[in-house]
């Protein structure tokens, strides 16, 4: 029965063509906060292992924790009401698309009303089923003025603590 479930899931996962990497990046922004599970399916275990997000007040070390734990906190972060509100305000335009074999790099410009724009670079790779997933995100031009946007666009513990400090609240 267990094998049936996994095979069925894989078979269904293979149904339909895989969207190209720039479409994956577009969907990432479309789904942030609004459709967290779809957003979660676009990022790889490598990104989940790197964000370092922790539950507020948690004292457990994040190094070496399993993918499930990392995904849990990532999803819980997106579930915050203010996250979805902020994500809806982001406006994204693609600057460059580079695709070579099974790796791709997409650069976008992220802006929101009243905040300076910043650049966000996505590094993607194709997984075993042929689907593109986001492995790594880098940002340039992040300042205090657009810190909230940067956090929503790529939630990490480093940005969360910077944001908490900027807002004058406990980083937990």
């Amino acid at each position: 029965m267990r094998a049936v479930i996994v095979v069925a899931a894989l078979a269904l996962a293979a149904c339909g063509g895989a969207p190209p990497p720039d479409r994956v990046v577009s969907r990432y922004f479309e789904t942030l906060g609004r459709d967290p599970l779809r957003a979660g399916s676009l990022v790889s275990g490598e990104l989940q292992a790197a964000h370092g997000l922790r539950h507020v007040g948690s004292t457990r070390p994040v190094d070496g924790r399993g993918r499930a734990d990392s995904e849990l906190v990532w999803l819980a972060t997106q579930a915050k009401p203010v996250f979805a509100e902020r994500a809806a305000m982001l406006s994204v335009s693609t600057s460059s698309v580079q695709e070579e074999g099974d790796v791709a790099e997409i650069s976008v410009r992220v802006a929101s009303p009243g905040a300076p724009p910043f650049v966000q670079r996505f590094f993607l790779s194709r997984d075993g089923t042929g689907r593109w997933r986001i492995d790594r995100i880098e940002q340039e031009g992040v300042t205090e003025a657009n810190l909230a946007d940067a956090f929503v666009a790529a939630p990490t513990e480093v940005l969360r603590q910077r944001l908490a400090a900027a807002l004058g609240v406990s980083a937990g």
Partner: protein
Amino acid sequence: MSAPVAVDVNRGRASRRWLAASLAVAAAGLATRIHDIYAFAPLHDFDGPGHGVNVLALERGELPDPQGWGGFHPPLYYAIGAAVWRILPERVPVHVGLRAISVVAGVVLAIVLWRALRRFVADADAAVTAALVFCSPVFTIASSMLGNEMLGASFVTIALMRLTAIPPQGPLAGHAAATGVWLALGLWTKSSALAAVAAAALGYALAGRGRRSQAFAAAALVVVLPLAAASAHYVRLMRASGGSLLSVVSGAAMAPQVQEEMRAQPPGERHVGDYVRLPLSAFLAPHFSAPGLARSVPGLLHASAWADGHGEFLPADVPGVLSAASVLSCLGIVPALVALFGLVRLLRRPERYRAATAPLVFGALLVAALVRYTWVLPFYSAVKASYLLPAALPAALLLAVGIGGLSPGRRDALRGFCLVLALLASGVLWQGWWE
């Protein structure tokens, strides 16, 4: 037309009116759910992110990590969720699709309830009871949220219904095998089905009087088939946890995040008095943060059955919402007392409800398991009425038997009260009415 026929015709008309009214109320409950699965904030469901992680794993073609928050849960709900995801249009968020599974499971459960109750009580009482259970806060909330509770409860209820209809003559093996399949599906969805396996064995053993070898074979089949079919999951859990039995029913056995979060919850330790204390706050302010409620097991069970005792669905900090929930909790005292009356009636005439023995035993086992669970995990989040959803059939039976025990005038008044309460609950649980 002679008088007895006229009475029968009038009773038939009255019964059809109650059925129509119950259907209308249930339709309102369904409308609330369809609205709420869209309107309720993403992943604010009980353990929403934890269930979401499991669906993500199945979507990738992997089994959930048993060390993860909800990884101890059997994978069937999540596999169905991953399958639904594949056919979901992009404009429909995945969490809405997952919640829709719970809606469908809830509708199926309510229909099964109604059909099962009709074997024991008047059609009108069966319809009204099923509508009230369907629209009750605990049922509405669980069947509007993503998660495995409602699907697991529906599989168990189907199996329990079959136990009330074991053929009085002839071979039992086929019937037991089919029941075993439903129990296997239940075990692949939620571990609370384990108690239903025990009750099913009892059911076939009792029904086989006069055909002992068949009864024994049927009882063995209804145990072996589901346990064998679901053993892969539970053996995997036991291996991952180093043999902990708690791992079968709670993430607290293995998931460090669960342990950390639970340790921070009140009350933190249990006393026998927690199982008898019933503070007024259960009715007047049915939220776990109210004085004494986090500690009171019966209080929090009532508050989570007839309101939103854990504050997972309604914004308790919004003026008016807690008051509305309090009205439901206060009115919920009536069906609770009627169910107690039904229990007394049932105990006084057990032969009339013999066919319901197995479901009733299951209900008692589940309650005993919950008492044990809340003692071992002395935290308010372990006291949830939704853990008793698989016992919807025996609970509904007690309520329906209680309604049927009243004089005709009082019975009609109580039926009307139940439908009004059901309608009120559907209104209070409509997401966003407070805005």
